[in-house]
């Protein structure tokens, strides 16, 4: 019960903040929340289950594009479009996850990297369906029960997504599934010996987190009401990895901190160092890894322990 209350309180705080900000800050905040949602999911996949994958952003893109295509080109009713979109994500995830159970460590990383790049190629060559290189614009979120969800109200929706994602992942983490994932991450043979179905655990973890990324993508589609290939480019997959590492892999709070810090850093750096903000960003990331190889959350732990 207390967790529900805490969840509701978190939602109220996160959503309420949106109403106190101007348009620009709302926009940044919305995108920040989406990155946090993605980082939480990726943290579960990478930090807790130990799977190095670069396909997370591709699923973000699959979710975004599919909701737009299903709603505005195939004109499906909204609930059906959402369901189909999620189903598509699950299907693609399974198609990637099941063969990947035979692959370890960096081999999975490369295969998912290849997938991410192929996704962009498909988007660009997609002609009328995907809008090709220019993507799709000129659509609006449909009304729900006569309500127009705009501006801070839509931010509230994203806040709901974040809180929901966090709740699901934390719940999973503390369950037997979470323990199985950690066991698979640390020592697959020992896990198998203890009766954990290693392949199935990996597939479920991958599919679940990819589906969550897809849902986040569906929410993203209505933030700027545009989807195009550069948004889902492969560089973002690396940024996501950095966020989780810098924050502290395996810890939900770490994912939140890492995502918030690395997303906002360019905005803070730009006015100060202008031209060279990417260089400073790179140096800071390297420094963060050097000084805190277990993530910034490790520093908080040490401070908290004192």
């Amino acid at each position, binding site marked *: 019960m207390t967790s529900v209350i805490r969840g509701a309180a978190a939602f109220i705080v996160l959503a309420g903040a949106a109403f106190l900000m101007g348009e620009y800050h709302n926009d940044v905040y919305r995108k920040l929340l989406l990155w946090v949602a993605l980082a939480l999911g990726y943290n579960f996949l990478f930090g807790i289950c130990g799977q190095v994958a670069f396909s997370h952003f591709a699923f973000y893109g699959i979710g975004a594009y599919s909701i737009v295509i299903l709603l505005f080109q195939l004109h499906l009713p909204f609930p059906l479009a959402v369901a189909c979109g999620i189903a598509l994500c699950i299907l693609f995830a399974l198609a990637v996850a099941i063969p990947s159970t035979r692959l370890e460590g960096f081999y999975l990383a490369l295969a998912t*990297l290849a997938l991410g790049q192929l996704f962009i190629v498909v988007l660009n060559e997609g002609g009328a369906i995907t809008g090709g290189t220019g993507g799709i614009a000129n659509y609006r979120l449909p009304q729900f029960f006569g309500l127009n969800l705009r501006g801070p109200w839509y931010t509230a929706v994203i806040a709901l997504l974040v809180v929901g994602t966090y709740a699901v992942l934390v719940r999973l983490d503390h369950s037997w599934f979470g323990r199985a994932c950690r066991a698979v991450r640390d020592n697959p043979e020992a896990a198998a010996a203890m009766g954990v179905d290693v392949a199935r655990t990996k597939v479920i973890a991958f599919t679940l987190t990819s589906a969550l990324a897809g849902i986040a993508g569906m929410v993203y589609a209505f933030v700027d009401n545009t989807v195009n290939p550069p948004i889902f480019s492969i560089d973002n997959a690396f940024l996501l990895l950095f966020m989780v590492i810098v924050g502290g892999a395996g810890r939900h709070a770490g994912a939140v901190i890492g995502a918030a810090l690395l997303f906002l850093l360019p905005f803070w750096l730009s006015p100060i160092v202008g031209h060279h903000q990417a260089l400073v960003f790179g140096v800071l990331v390297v420094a963060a890894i050097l000084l805190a*190889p277990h993530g910034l959350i490790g520093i908080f732990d040490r401070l908290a322990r004192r």
Partner: protein
Amino acid sequence: MQDFFELAVGAAASGCVYGLIGLGYLLVLRPTGIINFAVGEWAMLGAFGGFVLLTQYEWPYPLGMAAALAATFLIGWTTERVVVRPLVAKSAPLLAPILALLGMVVVYRETISAIFPPDPMPVPYAFGMGRLEFGAIGGTYQSCFIIGVTLAVFIGVWLFFERTVAGKAFEAVSLHRRAAALMGINLSRVTALSFGAGAVVAGLGGLLVAPNTSAHYLMGVPLAIQGFTALVIGGVGRVEGALLGGLLLALAEQLTVRYAPIPSGYAQGMPLVLLMIFLLLRPTGLLRARA
């Protein structure tokens, strides 16, 4: 058929460049277990070294090449000391230096981007733009140069690992770090040298390919991916694997574009498909390590 012969030498040259990048990975990977994705940026540094010394200052080619490679060696060595050694000393998980090096990709690229204009920069050919013909097969001077230099490098590296005591030390470190340390092998020196050597080899690849592709700040990542694919195909067990993988990758790429009856927009996906097939069916690569 004539097209095939025409392509052969050029594709072999491309394959040699991929092989050099793959070797750049390998020289670091073997003793340390670290996959260094910054090799692409090292290649870019070699290319820009060539631009500065050979194009801007017009040094004679051998001198410019040597100086550029010396500079890349220094950069590789310094990177190891500054970015990798502190992490190893702290017993950080293996992933940490790999990610730190990924961060260095950004640092290298942005440093070049800050110093040089964003346009592609010319790097001169070693012997100009002529062609050598051997009957049906022919290639540009540069292609022949690339193949020759790459063979020399690979033979040299192979001899180093197989025939010299220092090379055996490298092998020992890659097989078992602690045992090697107990045997008196200086781990940090081996690691530093491996980074330096990896940088030289990658920088050489960049310098050799840049006369065709130009030196520009975004050239690192595609090379890094191609080099890694070459390594996966060839296998990390043996040095020759990188070269074999590179040659196969280049041939597959170019022959697919030339002969496959699919639109070339999709042919560009071919290396990715090849990579995924290899990962699924033969993740250890074509050449097995010697027992």
